[in-house]
């Protein structure tokens, strides 16, 4: 070694390198408690790896934000707190749960007498919730996604007076997957959590269909 200064520098460099190595080891291996997984975290041998929620098992998988409709109280902050405008949270319709009612709790304002498409009778402020007559007395309700701002007014009405088929969900073609979700931070009922990217929906059902059967549209969104 040429001189003392270089020797000390090399020593410090080695020390910092060792510290970084220990840090990354701690981060990668901290939750590998052998008792919590019967396959020793060899996911190739386990059939439930897709749904496994152990931190170590989903460590390598990417996660995205999603909101749990069971906890949501429709406060309206999803529309105002998202860094994107309009919000990445939109109303999603679980058609399998819908009652197809003429007097839809999520479509019409409470106390409406005339059931027409006049704006003053609708809960939705942007005319994103549309209805189409199917057969007597059933109407199909769909959401025009590009208009929905995620205010939750229709969700509130549907859960109060209907089946709860209209639910707020984070739409991942718009969500930026921020490190810290601004909506999550301000949600009064802590309804936001990170879910694995290959199961990005938390849509509620009546229990006779699993959420995993909800088909996912589109391909990879780069």
């Amino acid at each position: 070694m040429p001189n003392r200064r270089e020797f000390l520098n090399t020593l410090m460099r080695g020390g910092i390198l060792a510290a970084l190595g220990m840090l990354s080891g701690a981060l990668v291996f901290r939750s590998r408690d052998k008792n919590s997984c019967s396959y020793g975290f060899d996911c190739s041998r386990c059939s439930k790896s897709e749904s496994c929620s152990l931190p170590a098992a989903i460590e390598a998988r990417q996660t995205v934000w999603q909101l749990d409709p069971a906890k949501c109280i429709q406060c309206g902050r999803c529309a105002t707190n998202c860094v994107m405008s309009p919000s990445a949270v939109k109303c999603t319709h679980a058609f399998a749960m819908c009652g197809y009612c003429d007097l839809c709790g999520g479509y019409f304002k409470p106390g409406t007498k005339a059931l027409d498409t006049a704006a003053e009778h609708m809960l939705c402020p942007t005319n994103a919730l549309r209805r189409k007559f199917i057969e007597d007395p059933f109407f199909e309700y769909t959401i025009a996604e590009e208009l929905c701002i995620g205010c939750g007014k229709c969700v509130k009405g549907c859960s109060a007076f209907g089946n709860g088929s209209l639910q707020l969900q984070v739409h991942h073609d718009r969500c930026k997957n921020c490190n810290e979700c601004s909506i999550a931070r301000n949600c009064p009922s802590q309804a936001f959590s990170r879910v694995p990217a290959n199961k990005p929906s938390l849509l509620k059902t009546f229990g006779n269909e699993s959420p995993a059967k909800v088909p996912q549209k589109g391909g990879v969104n780069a």
Partner: protein
Amino acid sequence: MLTASATLLSTMAMAIQRFPKPEFESAYTQPQTQIPLPRGEFLAYLDVFVLFASLCLITWLVLKKRSRFWVFFMSLFSLAYFGFYREGCICSIGAIQNVSLALFDHSFVIPLSVIAFFLLPLVFTLFYGRTFCAGVCPFGAFQDLFAFKPQALGSRLNTVLGIIPYLYLGLAVLFAATGTDFIICRYDPFVGIFRFNASFGMFLFAGILLLSGVFIARPYCRFLCPYGVLLNWTSRFSRKHLSITPKECIQCRLCEHSCPYDAIDVPVTTKSPETRPAMVKKMMMLTILVPFLVLIFGYTGSRLQETFAGVDSRVKLAKEVLALSKMQDAGNKMQDDSYEIKAFKASGKTESQVYSEASAVLKKFYVGGWLFGGFIGLAIALMTGGRMLPVYRTDYVTNKGRCFSCARCTDYCPVKS
């Protein structure tokens, strides 16, 4: 006719099948509910690969090719890829928060790509200097574009303003480790420009930084960036840092004003007139100053536990619940419940659970406050001590900690390799 009821509307959305599933007589088929898929998972690993490749390329451009021209174009590429294409997120600066939270909260999952984004620039800097800052970090690239009329700030101002990144780093680690907030992400000035979508405050902050960046080059990098603190420390021990001259310095003075960031250390050839007693006195002062500042700032930090903890949502909820129960005890008329209170009432948690959660958070901020304060005290003490050390230098050298390896100075040096 639907009648609205205040209590009904405040319940959480529950899946009660009030109306049966219809049986359609016509040929209507129910549409499928669709949720859009998020970004493909493998693309996160592509980002890591691009980061690694960019770091290799920029290091070669800075240390071997020594060309400002190529470093500039590399930084444009990084601005385009990591800035506008990836919209500034995932980033190495924010990765500090993920690492802090992952160390203290075992239920928090930190993806391997985030660990890579945290470690790779540090490891490269440990061997080759701050080449990450030169041409890979999109923030640095953005600010570099605006450095038209850089002014020299003087060493005292540079040192004093240099405390701010330590404050930012300390607060970021403190708030991330307690699971309160990711302040680096929240106060990120440039991500709004990358997304073409931001609040007015964010745009204003970015505008101020970029405009002041015309005269005070790279303001975020020098006086705000928390990751820059870590890069500064690792760069000081780098094996091969960018040097102004490729061989030896001939003291021609041509590079003296070439650095927009005050990162060139000029020769100081008059040996310091310090006598041994004077040096011993300085040493003694430092021995007292360091622990004194650590303790004073640490104590102040711990006393700020309520101020810091007040930002946490669990503590805020506890304060609201406490105020509500006091009002109920006093028999006062109740105002409209806030959403937090409504959600709390519907969640089934007891008051004592809320209070114990909040006091656990407060305890974390007590310990964290001591550590944060001590860290700041140590940083200030060592910075002050560093300025007291005698300096003797014959050559023009880059300050290994503060130099961003932008390679501007290499164009000024007449020595050929």
